[in-house]
């Protein structure tokens, strides 16, 4: 996750309780999703940004996961994510995100 976004997440996490935060990710591949997901849970795995060694323990979902899809307006989802849902490896991403959440 780029450094600016890491700082934004860090700032939000400092002023809001972790259980009130959900991070929704949009990476195109499972590997990218894992890096970003790990960054907001156990810390930046590349140790390059403000979240290096910082364990925020936030909950993260990817936009193509069913939990997110079912929680939002179906038409808006179709409009914004529908296209990507068709080309991304949804199963692999969902499986990776479960790992990130320690499920």
């Amino acid at each position, binding site marked *: 996750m780029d450094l600016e976004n890491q700082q934004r997440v860090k700032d939000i996490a400092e002023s809001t309780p972790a259980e009130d935060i959900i991070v929704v990710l949009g990476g195109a591949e499972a*590997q990218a999703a894992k*890096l970003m997901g790990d960054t907001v849970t156990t*810390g930046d795995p*590349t*140790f*390059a*940004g*403000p979240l*290096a*060694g910082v364990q925020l323990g936030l909950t993260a979902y990817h936009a193509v996961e069913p939990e997110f899809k079912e929680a939002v307006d179906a038409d808006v989802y179709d409009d914004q994510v529908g296209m990507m849902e068709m080309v991304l490896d949804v199963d692999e991403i969902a499986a990776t995100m479960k790992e990130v959440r320690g499920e």
Partner: protein
Amino acid sequence: MSKKKVVHYINQFFAGIGGEEKADHEPEVREGVVGPGIGINAALGDDAEIVATVICGDTYFNEHMEDAEAAVLEMIEKYDPDLFIAGPAFNAGRYGVAAGAVTKAVGEKLGIPAVTAMYVENPGADMFKADAYIVNTGDSAATMGEAIPALTSLALKLLKGEEIGTPDEDNYMARGVRVNYFADDRGSKRAVDMLVKKLKGEEYETEYPMPAFDRVDPNPPVEDMTKAKIALVTSGGIVPKGNPDRIESSSASKYGKYDISGFDKLSEADHETAHGGHDPVYANEDPNRVLPVDVLRDLEKEGAIGELHQYFYSTVGNGTAVASAKKYAEEFAKELVEAGVDAVITTST
């Protein structure tokens, strides 16, 4: 028994100081861990701990190698460490050169076990693998998760004075050291076994890989420069403004061929740099600082050279695979020869 002491070296980026704009950061030392040191420290476990982290800007180190190395060594020595670790530098060229140089110096001048890690194509790898233990890593920080255990594994072996295995066993770059050992079978049998496998089309492993020399003989000098056609080629990523061919700022997948026949010099209005490996400000302000069209035009007008070739070839050298660079050059070298070019000036950043 107290933990062994480790000093860690990283660049300005992993220290969280900044990116390219801070690559001129002078050497400094901080107590404890910084950046990747957090992960390395955890992996070192009870055996050792990082007591200090030395940080230096990549550009500063490479442009002041002697002074920077001396300053860094002095900082390291003060902690009287039992082990030194640099990086991992992945494919960041200047970082790899710095990490390699410091690791070599620590080993030779301070006599302390020292190890670093980077990607095989990092220029620092070829430069220092014979003089320092360099663990293999992937080509980007995305592989930090695998790099840290690999690096600390070899580091701990060195710290404990354990026997270091072959490059394959301990995942470091071959240093060109030959070690004698007694094989079970004698040489003639091993050779015949290998030949039989080869004849059967089975896989076999050579006992002595042929080194990749990749050296070329210099071409004979240009005889009469006043009649010569000179071409410019750059890996500094100079492209027409807007980068119409979208040459990537790193790991370029292509090169561009651009017409300079209407230009007496390049300028901020018509050209820019696509290179993502250093602060682009100076090259964007005045592209002649990377592709010296202005000076060559003057020399052409004065008759010092016969002609400046109307096309220049450009790609971005940052993280670009050696095989790719070779491929591009083979292609456009043919065009240069066909165009009657006598000599080429290549510039790099």
